[in-house]
């Protein structure tokens, strides 16, 4: 008889691990729940670090290499902690035709950040997206989860300055 697999202990008493565990339990700790589990880690912690990858691998009884492979294959997952504010510039076709490159240039000029970079004080991350599906409002930016349509470098920078000063 095969003994039941030993589940690893939670990495810390941070309550967010219970959310991650709940996702795995809902899928019966099956290996195919890997992507769903990584989503719930990233939703809870903002990114995937080594501790969480090792914990997920051990819990789902998968090799760490496979978990790392999946985590790095998909664009949504990030292994770096995000800034307090995330500014995602859409680079879909409609936004590109309506000059979303100017938005990225404006961010680069003002904050010195390119796509995928976070400011040293951790205040702001600049990211780009393939298409957020807001093509009717091109060019679009997703700022902390909120879609802002018909942006210009001026409107976007003004909004960002306000946010960063407020926090």
């Amino acid at each position: 008889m095969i003994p039941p697999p030993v589940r690893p202990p939670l990495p810390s008493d941070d309550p967010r691990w219970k959310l991650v565990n709940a996702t795995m339990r809902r899928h019966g700790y099956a290996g195919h729940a890997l992507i769903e589990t990584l989503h719930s880690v990233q939703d809870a912690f903002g990114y995937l670090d080594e501790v969480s990858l090792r914990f997920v691998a051990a819990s789902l009884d998968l090799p760490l290499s496979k978990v790392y492979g999946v985590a790095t294959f998909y664009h949504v997952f990030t292994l770096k902690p995000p800034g307090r504010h995330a500014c995602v510039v859409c680079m879909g076709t409609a936004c590109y035709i309506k000059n979303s490159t100017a938005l990225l240039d404006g961010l680069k000029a003002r904050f010195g950040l390119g796509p995928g970079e976070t400011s040293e004080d951790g205040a702001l991350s600049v990211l780009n997206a393939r298409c957020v599906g807001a093509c009717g409002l091109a060019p679009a930016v997703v700022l902390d989860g909120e879609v802002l349509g018909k942006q210009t470098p001026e409107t976007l920078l003004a909004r960002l300055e306000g946010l960063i000063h407020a926090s």
Partner: protein
Amino acid sequence: MHLEDLEALAARYHAEETHEQEIRVCVAASCQSSGSLPVLEALQSACAGQGNGRCKVKGVGCMGLCSAGPLVAVAKRHAPLNESVLYRAVTPQDAAEILASSGGAPVERLRCPTDQPFFQRQVRIVLERSGLIDPESLPEAIAHGGYSALIQAITEMTPAEVIREVTASGLRGRGGAGYPTGLKWSTVAKMPGAQKYVICNADEGDPGAFMDRAVLESDPHRVLEGMAIAAYAIGASKGYVYVRAEYPLAVARLETAIRAARRAGFLGARVADTPFGFDIELRLGAGAFVCGEETALMASIEGLRGQPRPRPPYPAESGLWGCPTLINNVETFANIASIVRRGSDWFASIGTQGSKGTKVFALAGRIKNTGLIEVPMGISLRTIIEEIGGGIPDGKGFKAVQTGGPSGGCIPADYLDTPVDYDSLKSLGTIMGSGGMIVMDETACMVDVARFFMEFCMSESCGKCVPCRTGTWQMHALLDRIARGEGTPEDLALLEELCEVVQSMSLCGLGQTAPNPVLSTLRYFRHEYEAKLQNQPLRKPQTQRGTG
């Protein structure tokens, strides 16, 4: 449950509604981004203050003209969109005035005429309930005919009859390639095996396309109903919707819809108290364009990296976890209920000889009316762009329209009278695609457009097969050099040669179609490539080559 029971239920929901006028506020993603939620709240509190029950304020799905959002429609109960008074760019401050005007003289300063071609030239099948019903309410879907096709199929038709109807309708896959849906269904139905799966591909990855998003956000029950009918036809008991994680609102509405459908008995172990059992689970994508390819999508559902595998075996034979699997796109499933309910003859009477029914397009780019449209197959590109789209803004001239995203191509002005159907678009070197339609004006540089799409394919290549992984990289380097004005005629020749190699040697659709944007811009705008070359001396020192 029989059809009569469902009809009685629908009649009861109708009777429960006593209001005369409805104020519908679009709460799909695009109008929410334009600020429709505060408008909805303002209207709801103003309406509650009035308290006579004559008027009902509700959130509805996409009404199409996204660029004019937030959109608000005032109409008689259940009246269609083009019989309503439509308001554009509404703010919360306008709420009282709109409410006061309902049933009387409209507020002219906010008016968006619905007798314009944008609304009049559309034919709505997939979007028939979009903008009319509250997407989060199952009773509203039922009151407007939801799930009647499912009940009709499982209580009055055999699986073979359902497949015969779908085949006779002439419906072809709306994901882009246009494979006959009925043929796909009958192939899976014939496969032996107790366990079969139905998958809905909602991994809408083409940049510039948002049709599936709008359908899922506006009328999610229509997609679930289509999947359940498919499951009955092919003998599947389990379904998955694979949806992009970038669409949080669509995910939330699908979750709500699945829970409601289960509670009402339209999903579960005994669908509508019959022996037929079917349940649906959601799976989130994680931002990989290649997962729109069916074998990569199934790998992703299994929790693996989304890498395609060679076909055959096709998913119909060996799909998810090795079982026979049916994969269709959101819009394909969204057509099914109407076909079953209204019959294949009706559906086949719309469209052209080889392409039946309608197609939903996401109209965007340099065009006046951007948004979501549903048009009959066979309509000309000129009608879409000049009449429905309202032409090019700022007095600029039209240059090209791009369809099919990174797998498609650009169509120049000379071919604007081409009818929109699978075969005509293919003959122009592009594809129908999933429905993204991006209009470009005279300021667009076609070499730059080709480079944009190649950059996309290069970074989205999964890396499994060499022609795609290396070929897209090399083609991007060549395009980049040409776009910067540093290319040579040899570069252009090499680019054309690579297009052929990558097209014929790649493993999956991503690589096979990646050269299309280059080939089609070369076909119609070769002079732009050559003009870029002419800026430079023909010969460059050897040391500078290969550094791109």
